[in-house]
């Protein structure tokens, strides 16, 4: 998986425990980009020819190509639609997010 491991963040208990300087470890994502999406990209694995264009163009890098089929990290996908728009075989559909909420 290309997604970084989520870090648990315990708020400093005292001012002294705050970081020295305006510092934080890198690779430190503590919360997901929850609910930014209106539409959700859904890959039709049948149609997908694994050209990897969607993987390349995703601004958020949420498409993972480590297995034999692409996977989207919906915790961080913003539903921008770039992947779908750029997919030549039209293997990605943007589906209204609400339908998944139900």
């Amino acid at each position, binding site marked *: 998986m*290309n*997604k*970084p491991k989520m*870090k648990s*963040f315990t708020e400093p208990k005292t001012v002294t425990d705050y970081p020295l300087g305006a510092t*934080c*470890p*890198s*690779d*430190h*994502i*503590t*919360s*997901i*980009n929850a609910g*930014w*999406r209106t539409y959700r990209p859904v890959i039709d694995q049948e149609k997908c020819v694994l*050209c*990897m*264009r969607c*993987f*390349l*163009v*995703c*601004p*958020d*890098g*949420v498409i*993972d*190509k*480590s297995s034999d089929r692409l996977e989207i990290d919906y915790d*961080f996908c*913003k*539903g*921008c*639609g*770039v992947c*779908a*728009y*750029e997919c030549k075989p039209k293997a990605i559909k*943007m589906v209204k997010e609400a339908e998944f909420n139900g």
Partner: protein
Amino acid sequence: MMPKITAKNLTNDELFYGHKACGGCGESLAVRLAMKILGERTFASLPAGCMSAVSFIYPNMAFKTNAIITPFASTGAVAAGVAAGLKALGIENTYSVGFAGDGGTADIGLQALSGAIDRGDQIIYFCNDNEAYMNTGIQKSGLTPYGTRTTTSPAGENLPGSVTTKKNMFEIVAAHDIAYAATASVGYLEDYMMKVEKAKSVKGTSYIHILAPCPTGWGTPSEITISLAKEAVDCGLWYLAEYENGEFKLNKDPKAFTPVADYVKKQGRFKHLTETDIEHLETQRDKKWLKMRRDWNK
């Protein structure tokens, strides 16, 4: 020749993840791909601007590598200091890299960049050009094209939006006789990645100027970011070129341009432009290409 980097052989590892940029943000794609090519031993310096604003929100840090926000004017200087510090400590095989916006490069950061090039500092400098100050809400920068509506270059009865033309940052940098400079577009990603790869082995300063559409500031749907950036090149308002060993090279010299009107009309920031305005843009474009073709195609 370097092996070509493609979507297929590009590493799956993400070094820039979980940022809070808008959906479809061109800049964030430019940074993401650059980081993938540069790798884990990269030290990234980002001035104030969208990319730093969305990536270092305590306690959420989007860079996997070392990274630092710099004062708005200081990308070139901080990156140069990082390079000098690493060198002095003997920490080798690292890249000190700057990622600045158009405002952070062509306006307030120009001097520090110029100083770094002049000293030949070992840094790679990216100008992520979305043609306005986006982080503060779409104000005109030195790289805002003629006719662009921004919040400080309003379009109305008396003005057509921005009345100045886009600063020729690439040529300005090249005039410093920099070791390596290139233009790029998120619409031509393999070209871009090739240029990043090239910059990795340059001795001295490199500069890569990438056009990166901003759906929010340009008034465009988020999904068209890539194709719009491609169209910018295809219609001739942007160009792909390199400066190396003291010589310019046009990487792409289209026989015919797609209509500027098509490009422009997709964008809220240009909605007010009249036919005459668009013709003016085309004339400017043709003048520029005449010179580029004459002077750079040796």
